[in-house]
């Protein structure tokens, strides 16, 4: 076990835990943002530099500070390590710089982007970015690549986090190891992804994409995400766990995604049949409203059972009270 101090909070974690995961065990606003790191994907992380933190003391044995900021998602903790994230201004300054770098070539087409509302880059920029840009040049564009009827690739929105490359490699196993073609700011997601679109698990690249570069074609332009209601559901699927979230508008299932945890990481990969083909309520066993606890506009719309004050219930009309008795709220607060 290693004892570390993160932003003044002490926590003991098993050896080999990364700084990021130690911070996630503490939870709350001190957790560094992650744009490329994805726990279920081996080898991910270290690329976006959004999670850089200051290591003020390397370990109990060698308490010297690390000379550069380190990527918290891939740096393992040492016993006695002291890490500064939100308490260090230089870290926050660098993070501002990272937002700026990620945005200079991003098209900022959020108004027409299906990811808007559940976009990691939006959240990241909202929390750490500036409202203006110093970039005056033309933004980068790419030749459009059609990767099939199910997945839409918008290369202009891509921040090259490599998550889909690892997904293609590890979940939707293909034969090739090419994921990114070209280099520098001309690098783009290439042939490899094109080749896996007939794989049963290829749809998962949509879920791992932090931005709107890979989106669900069957859900394209149908609705804004905050107008839909997420509902947990499952079905007996021979290929995957069958545990999904259905996104309803009225009685219509607009799309299906995997379930994600509070850091936007998929809990169980789902197959393409569940994702793209089962769009009827009758295909599914409904479990109840999905809890979205990420900082996004979706959770702002309270599509979960209300937390009701007991004293308020007494004041409600009789018909509402009867309704509540029939369908009791999950949580009763004071």
């Amino acid at each position: 076990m290693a004892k570390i101090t993160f932003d003044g909070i002490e926590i003991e974690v098993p050896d080999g835990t990364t700084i990021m995961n130690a911070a996630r065990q503490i939870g709350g606003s001190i957790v560094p943002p992650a744009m490329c790191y994805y726990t279920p994907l081996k080898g991910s992380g270290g690329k976006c530099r959004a999670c850089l933190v200051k290591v003020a003391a390397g370990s109990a044995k060698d308490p010297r500070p690390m000379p550069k900021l380190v990527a918290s998602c891939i740096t393992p903790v040492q016993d006695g390590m002291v890490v500064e994230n939100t308490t260090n201004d230089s870290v926050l300054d660098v993070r501002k710089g990272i937002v700026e770098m990620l945005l200079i070539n991003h098209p900022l087409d959020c108004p027409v982007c299906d990811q808007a509302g559940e976009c990691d880059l939006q959240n990241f920029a909202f929390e750490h970015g500036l409202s203006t840009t110093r970039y005056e040049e033309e933004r980068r564009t790419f030749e459009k690549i059609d990767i099939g009827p199910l997945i839409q690739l918008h290369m202009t929105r891509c921040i090259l986090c490599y998550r889909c490359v690892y997904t293609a490699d590890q979940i939707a196993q293909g034969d090739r190891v090419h994921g990114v073609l070209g280099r520098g700011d001309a690098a783009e997601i290439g042939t490899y992804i094109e080749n896996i679109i007939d794989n049963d698990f290829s749809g998962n690249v949509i879920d791992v994409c932090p931005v709107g570069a890979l989106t669900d074609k069957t859900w394209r332009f149908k609705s804004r995400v905050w107008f839909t209601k997420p509902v947990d559901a499952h079905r007996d699927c021979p290929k995957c766990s069958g545990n999904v979230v259905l996104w309803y508008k009225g009685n219509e299932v607009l799309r299906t995604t995997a379930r994600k945890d509070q850091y936007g990481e998929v809990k169980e990969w789902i197959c393409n049949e569940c994702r793209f083909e089962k769009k009827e309520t009758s295909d599914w066993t409904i479990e109840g409203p999905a809890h979205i606890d990420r900082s996004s506009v979706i959770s702002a719309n309270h599509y979960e059972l209300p937390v009701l004050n007991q004293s308020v219930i007494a004041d409600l009309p009789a018909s509402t009270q009867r309704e509540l008795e029939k369908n009791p709220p999950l949580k009763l607060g004071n």
Partner: protein
Amino acid sequence: MGRKLLTEHINVEGIETFDVYRKHGGYRSVEKALKTMTPDEVVEEVKKSGLRGRGGAGFPTGLKWSFLAKPEGVPRYLVCNADESEPGTFKDRQLMSKLPHLLIEGMITGSYALGANTSYIYIRGELLYVLRILEKAIAEAYAAGFLGKNILGSGYDLDLFVHPGGGAYICGEETALLESLEGKRGNPRNKPPFPAVQGLYARPTVVNNVESIAAVPVIVNEGGDEYAKIGVGKSTGTKLFSACGHLNKPGIYEIELGLPVEEFIYSDEYCGGIWKGRDLKAVVAGGSSVPILPKELILKTAAGEDRLMTYESLSDGGFVTGTMLGSGGFIAMDETTSIVRNTWSFARFYHHESCGQCSPCREGTGWLEKVLHRLVHGHGQMHDIDLLVSVAKQIEGNTICPLGEAAAWPVAAAVRHFRDEFEWYVTHPQEATKPGAVYPGKLVTA
């Protein structure tokens, strides 16, 4: 005239063949090491020599060797980094094409010291003709019994391979090199783990520059202490400098570390002064990625002492008034040179060569280039100059590998020392963008 340890016989007819090289004392270090020394003794000699990595970072080679993890039953590798692609640096190419056996000799002795039974020379893709020279030399070494099984009857086996890269600058970064050598896309790895623990094929690996390895035979032959007598302080031995730019005698010079920069530029023995009788304006002392210095600061340190060609003296004053020895790519610029154009040219290179893996470098290098492009073409504004500094600062230190710094340093240094010239491009765009325009000096903008 300083001693020449590596290039003493470089102009001998046929030195690239095994027989001639052997006649001039070649492969003595292999015999000496394999027959009379233990591997640890060889490492100890290299440590004593104070040899510092000649690829750019200047890390002590002996220390690097002693860091190599040596778990039981796991192969170890020595990899020679011959992916020399830094603008202004062309010493390794010459060394390999003229003295291929010197490198091979160093590889054998080095591999023996590290206990490696397979070693690689990773050579830059553009240097195919050098690759052929090396392969021919390796075949000769195999035939003479210096490579292969049971070398010289000592029981030590070594296989040596040359592997060409695809011509990417980034593959000169050691972990990107290893990725490329494994057959993958040349993206630098996150560190730790360092190559000394998990390098090639996740095995302990040492990656050394061509010149560092070529110095090993000399050290083994003459002894580490003898080698350490040459040079000044912690900068021991001799170093190859590839001098280019506006010099009367550009070329590759082997110098004893500690030579004054002024002597190197102006002495007839070396570069012979600035061409066409012009005045020196600036020098990039160690390859395009190190900070540029104006004439006053390259000849004398800020404290007024003579600047010497050593790791310490060149970096005296940090990045405020100093630079780095780097890889020895010495670029001199005369008074007619446009620093702004030159900076743009460097920035364009790093933009082209960024691997695109981490965001500050991928986006930042392109941004720097675009802003400089604007300035050079007379469309810049005053705030663009501060923007350059700010973007460079956002890249520096926040990237996976040192390419980010390599891109940021020259830009930041150019603005630091030649800000008035950048301003001239903004205030006098028409004059500045004329072909052959020469910045008239500080007086005009004042």
